[in-house]
C-alpha cells in the first residue's frame, strides 16, 4: 500500500513537471509533443538508445546513491562533484602509467579511483570530526578546489600535448572496460553497488544506526549509536562511490582520458536524484535511469527540434521542484481533507 502510494505520488509529480515544461517549451515556440517524442525515441526507443541511456545513467546512479546514503544518514555530503573528479583524474593518470594485465588493472584502477574520492571526502570527514566543521560547506568548497586542482593536473604536469583541449593522455587500451552489445560493464558495477548499498542501509547494524541518525541525530546519540564514527564512515563510503563513478567514467565511458568538463553536472544531478528519491537507494536507482533517459534523449532532442540540449538541465530542476512541491502539497491537502471528513463525522454524531 505504502509502495503504491509512493509510486503514485512520484508519477503525479513527474507528470506535473512535464506539464509545466510543456508550457515553457510552448513559450519558446517549439512543440512539446515533438520534444517529448524525441526524448523518448533517443532515450528509450531502441536497444541502441536504451543501452546508451543505461551507460549515461551509470555515473548518475553512483553519485545519486552516494548522496542518498549520505542524506539518509544525516550527513550532508554535497561534494560528489569534487570526489568524482578526483577519482577520475587518479584513474586517468594511473591508467597511462600503470603496467599490469587487464583483468587485474581494471578493478585496481577502479578501486584506486574510488579511494581517491574517499580521500577527498576524507578531508571533509577529518575537518568535521576534529574541528566540527560543517561537512555541508567543506564538501562544497572542496568541489571547487578539486575542480581547479584536477584541471591544473590536466593542464600542466600530465598534459597531452597532442590534444586540443587540456586533457591527460589516453589510458592504455587494455584498461578500457568491455561492453556487451553497447552496454558497458560499468552499469553492472552500478547494479552491484545498488545491492550492496541496499544491504548496508537496511540489513546491517551500522546501516540501522546511520538511518536513525538521519531521522533524529539526538535520538541516535542518546540511544548509544556511534554517531561520530558512523558519520566518518558514511562520508568516506559515499566519497568512495563518487570516486568510483569518476574512475568508471574514465575506464568505461567514451573519452578514456581526463579532460576539462568530464564531470559535467554529475555531482549535482546525483544530489537532485537523491532528493526526489527521498534518499531511498532503490528509488535513487530508478530516478537515475530516468535522468539518464532525459540526458541521452536530450542529444536527440537538440538534433530533431530547435530546443538546445541545455534545456534538460532546466527540465531536471523543474522536475525536482515539482516533485518536492507536489509531494508536500499532496501530504498537506490529504491531511486537510481527512480532518474535514472527521469534523463532519464528529459534528454529525453530536
Amino acid at each position, binding site marked *: 500500500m505504502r509502495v503504491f502510494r509512493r509510486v503514485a505520488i512520484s508519477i503525479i509529480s513527474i507528470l506535473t513537471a512535464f506539464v509545466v515544461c510543456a508550457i515553457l517549451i510552448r513559450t519558446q515556440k517549439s512543440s512539446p509533443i515533438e520534444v517529448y517524442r524525441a526524448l523518448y525515441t533517443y532515450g528509450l526507443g531502441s536497444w541502441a538508445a536504451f543501452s546508451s541511456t543505461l551507460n549515461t545513467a551509470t555515473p548518475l546512479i553512483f553519485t545519486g546513491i552516494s548522496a542518498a546514503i549520505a542524506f539518509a544518514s544525516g550527513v550532508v555530503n554535497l561534494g560528489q562533484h569534487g570526489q568524482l573528479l578526483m577519482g577520475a583524474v587518479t584513474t586517468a593518470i594511473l591508467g597511462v602509467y600503470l603496467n599490469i594485465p587487464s583483468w587485474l588493472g581494471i578493478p585496481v584502477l577502479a578501486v584506486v579511483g574510488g579511494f581517491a574520492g574517499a580521500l577527498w571526502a576524507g578531508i571533509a570527514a577529518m*575537518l568535521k570530526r576534529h574541528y566540527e566543521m560543517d561537512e555541508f*560547506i567543506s564538501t562544497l*568548497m572542496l568541489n571547487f578546489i578539486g575542480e581547479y586542482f584536477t584541471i591544473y593536473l590536466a593542464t600542466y604536469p600530465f598534459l597531452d600535448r597532442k590534444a586540443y583541449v587540456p586533457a591527460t593522455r589516453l589510458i592504455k587500451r587494455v584498461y578500457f572496460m568491455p561492453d556487451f552489445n553497447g552496454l558497458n560493464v560499468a552499469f553492472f558495477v552500478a547494479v552491484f553497488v545498488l545491492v550492496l548499498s541496499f544491504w548496508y542501509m537496511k540489513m546491517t547494524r551500522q546501516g540501522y544506526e546511520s538511518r536513525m541518525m538521519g531521522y533524529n541525530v539526538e535520538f541516535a546519540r542518546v540511544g548509544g549509536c556511534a554517531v561520530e564514527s558512523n558519520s566518518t564512515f558514511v562520508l568516506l563510503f559515499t566519497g568512495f562511490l563518487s570516486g568510483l563513478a569518476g574512475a568508471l567514467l574514465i575506464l568505461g565511458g567514451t573519452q578514456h582520458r581526463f579532460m576539462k568538463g568530464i564531470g559535467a553536472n554529475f555531482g549535482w544531478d546525483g544530489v537532485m536524484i537523491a532528493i526526489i528519491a527521498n534518499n531511498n537507494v532503490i528509488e535513487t536507482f530508478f530516478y537515475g535511469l530516468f535522468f539518464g533517459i532525459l540526458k541521452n534523449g536530450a542529444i536527440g532532442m537538440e538534433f530533431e527540434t530547435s530546443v538546445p540540449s541545455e534545456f534538460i538541465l*532546466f527540465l531536471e530542476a523543474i522536475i*525536482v*521542484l515539482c516533485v518536492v512541491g507536489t509531494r508536500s502539497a499532496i501530504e498537506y491537502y490529504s491531511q486537510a481533507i481527512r480532518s474535514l471528513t472527521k469534523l463532519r463525522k464528529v459534528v454529525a454524531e453530536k
Partner: protein
Amino acid sequence: MIDLTLHILRATLSSATPVMLAALGGMFTYYANIFNIAMEGMMLTGAFFAVYGSYFFGDWAIGTLFAVLSGLLMAALFAFFAIYLRCDEFITGIGINMLALGWTTYALRSTFNVKGALISAKIVPLPKWRVPILDLFEPIGSIISGHPFLLYLSFAIAVVLEIVIFNSRFGLHLRATGEDPEATKSAGINPIKIKLLATVLCGILSSLAGVYLSLGYVALFSENMSNGRGWISLAIIILVKGRPISILGLSLIFGLFESIGLILQHYKLAPQFAAMTPYIATLFVLYLYGKRKRKMEW
C-alpha cells in the same frame, strides 16, 4: 611594491562586493531562521538578466532593473515552495540553484546562441564613480575612488543594515521571528509575512550581487559565473552569525584572498591555484572558527 599593494587593496574592495551583497541578502533569511542556500542561484540569474537588459536596451539601469525583477522572481519561487508549500528549505534551495543554472545556461544558448560566455561591446557596464574629496588624497584615492557606484552603495547598505537590524521595529520583528516564530505570532506579528519579506530582500540583494558580477566586475556573462560565491557568502553569514558589520569585515578578508590569488597569477602561479584561493580561505576561516567553537562548546 607599493603599486602592487595598492592594486591588491583596490581589487580587494571589488572582489568583496558581490560576496558581501549576497551575504547581506542571506543575512535577512538567516535572522528569520530560513535555511536559505539559494543566494548562489539568485546571484546567477541576477548576473544573467543584468547582461540581458544591458545588452538589449543599451542601458545598465535597465539591466539592473531586470536583474532585480529576476531576483524577486527567484525569491517568489523560493517562498512558494519553502513557505507556502512547506517543502524542505534546503531542498528547495538546491532546486532553485539548479533551476538558475539550467535556466541561464539554456537562455544563453537559446537567446544569444552562444555556449560558455557572452562577451559583447553591446553590454553597457555600470558607470564608475570618482569619490569627490578622497580623490585628492593619494594613495587612498586610487584604492577607493573610481569603482562602480554599486560598490559604494553596498558598503553603505552594510552599515545601514547594521543599524536597522538592531534598532528598528523591523529588525526586532525579524530577529524575533527567527528565534521563535510561535512567540512572535503570539505577540501579534505575522511571522509568515516577515519571512516573506526577508526572502524578498534576500532576492533583491543577491541579484544586485549578480549585477555587480556581470556589469561591474566585468562586462560579460559566462555559464555558472557566480561560481560558488553564493556558497561563500553563506559560509560568511554562518561564521558571523548574521551580523551585518561583521559580514562587511569578513567579505573584505575574502576579497583580499581572491585578489592576492589573482595577482599571484602574474608571478607564475598556475591560474587554477589562484582560482582556488577563496575556497581555501573559506575552509581556513571555518577551521579557525571550529577551533574556537570547540573551546566554547557550551
